[in-house]
């Protein structure tokens, strides 16, 4: 009892030390990037046109905030990302599972999936615009399309890679088909579900930005595009930074905790 407890405490404090040193590393990295950026911006000619300083970029955000557009752009974009990728993943997981469980269905759908997976979201854009115009629907369809395949493919291969002996063990304990799916195949496919979700959300994130640019829908993508037309380089940089920072936050507060509570805790992947 006591050995198990102290080991848990040791593990926790070790984890905290690692987190602390990571945070320090991140701060050093950030400071470095800001200094380098400021330096370049200070020595080039016409920095407002080519590379506005970090300060100028920050001020432009205050400007946009005052106008009230920054928050609404940001909310529009996040909204699309969340709805699009949640639906894409919610459809992709059962579809991948179905294919992983049934070889006949998998053989039937595989060529089709392979075909569509190679036709990127950008490549289907024109036809979707023809069907649905430059609308929000168009952007949503592209996001959904892009996020569906990575998760479906990964769940399929994840289910297939669950070692036979785990399935046999559950069967000899009297597990029904449903119980095998719930207790063995789904958790066993978790490493692939994690990889697939990461890819799906990452692709969806790119699709939102590209979709907003091409379909001219209000949002961060559109803000960047408009920045170029308005000769407002600071606005472009601001948009880029928000895109990148949002991804880092998603990774840190959503994807990583999910992974460390499941596949890392189970020892299925090493960090």
């Amino acid at each position, binding site marked *: 009892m006591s050995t198990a407890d102290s080991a848990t405490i040791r593990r926790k404090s070790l984890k905290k030390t690692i987190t602390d040193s990571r945070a320090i590393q991140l701060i050093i990295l950030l400071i470095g990037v800001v200094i380098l950026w400021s330096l370049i911006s200070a020595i080039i000619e016409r920095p407002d046109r080519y590379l506005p300083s970090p300060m100028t970029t920050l001020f432009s955000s205050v400007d946009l905030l005052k106008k009230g557009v920054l928050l609404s752009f940001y909310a529009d974009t996040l909204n699309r990302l969340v709805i699009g990728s949640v639906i894409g993943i919610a459809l992709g997981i059962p579809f991948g599972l179905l294919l992983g469980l049934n070889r006949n269905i998998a053989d039937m759908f595989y060529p089709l999936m392979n075909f569509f997976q190679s036709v990127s979201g950008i490549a289907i854009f024109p036809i979707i615009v023809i069907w649905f115009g430059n609308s929000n629907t168009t952007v949503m369809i592209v996001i959904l399309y892009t996020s569906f395949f990575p998760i479906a493919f990964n769940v399929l291969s994840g289910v297939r890679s669950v070692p036979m*002996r785990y399935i046999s063990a559950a069967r*000899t304990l*009297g597990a029904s088909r449903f119980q095998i799916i719930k207790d063995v195949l789904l*958790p066993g496919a978790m490493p692939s579900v994690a990889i697939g979700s990461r890819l799906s959300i990452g692709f969806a994130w790119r699709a939102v930005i590209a979709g907003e640019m091409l379909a001219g829908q209000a949002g961060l993508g559109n803000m960047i595009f408009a920045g170029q037309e308005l000769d407002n380089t600071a606005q472009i940089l601001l948009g880029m930074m928000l895109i990148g920072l949002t991804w880092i936050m998603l990774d840190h507060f959503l994807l990583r905790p999910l992974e460390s509570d*499941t596949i890392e805790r189970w020892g299925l992947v090493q960090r």
Partner: protein
Amino acid sequence: MTGEAKLIVQGLSHHYPDEYTGESVHALDNIDLQIHENEFVAIVGPSGCGKTTFLNIIAGLLPYREGRALVDGTEIRGPGPDRGVVFQEHAILPWRTVKRNIGHGLEIRRVPKAEREKTVQEYIDLVGLSGFEDRYPHELSGGMKQRVAVARTLCADPVIMLMDEPFAAVDAQTRITLQDELNRVVMATRKTILFITHSVEEAAFLGDRCIVFSRRPGHIKTEVKIDIPREDRVWKDMVDNPKFTEARDNILRLVRSEVTNDVDS
């Protein structure tokens, strides 16, 4: 032998089909075997002779067409909780804690949580895993993982327990400990056990009977009775027990002759 026959195998043969050549691999040949209640039967035989094939058929994981196999009077058709299996490579689930692995069989049978936890705790204590209830398998040693596997099977309370070289993957020292422990567990639970092993010593130490398989296609070459009371089967005493050494040497000779034949042919 005491008690009724829990496992009855009659004229069981098995051929693995080969899809590419069309020829088949003859793995088992006309096996007749009965295992009675509370009996511990060990099977030894050369590598590739069909021991795992035999166990998988009894477990219901491998369909058979030639011969008959009955557990508790019922023809085997697929796996079921009446036959618990401890696999050679540990097959406990990495995403379940020790406690939840051991209780998995009861969970599958929808035993209420309170009752389940009580039973699970008994088996955790029995195999000496107290203090590790909430650990995940990757945090355990090889020997501990096999203890979990044994406890999981016992906890589901099967009619017969099937073990396929369960201690083959652990070091010699741990192996001796696990063998002593298994004996203790067998005395406490009075389980009927079919135990496959490569080790002649292990078979002689644990088995009431030892079945010697021929090389492939596996058939029963002979059987050796090991008439030592379970209470006397402790490693520190067994090494000088003449009944044990005699049985061991006897089995060893029989297995050797199979392997030598193999080399000659």
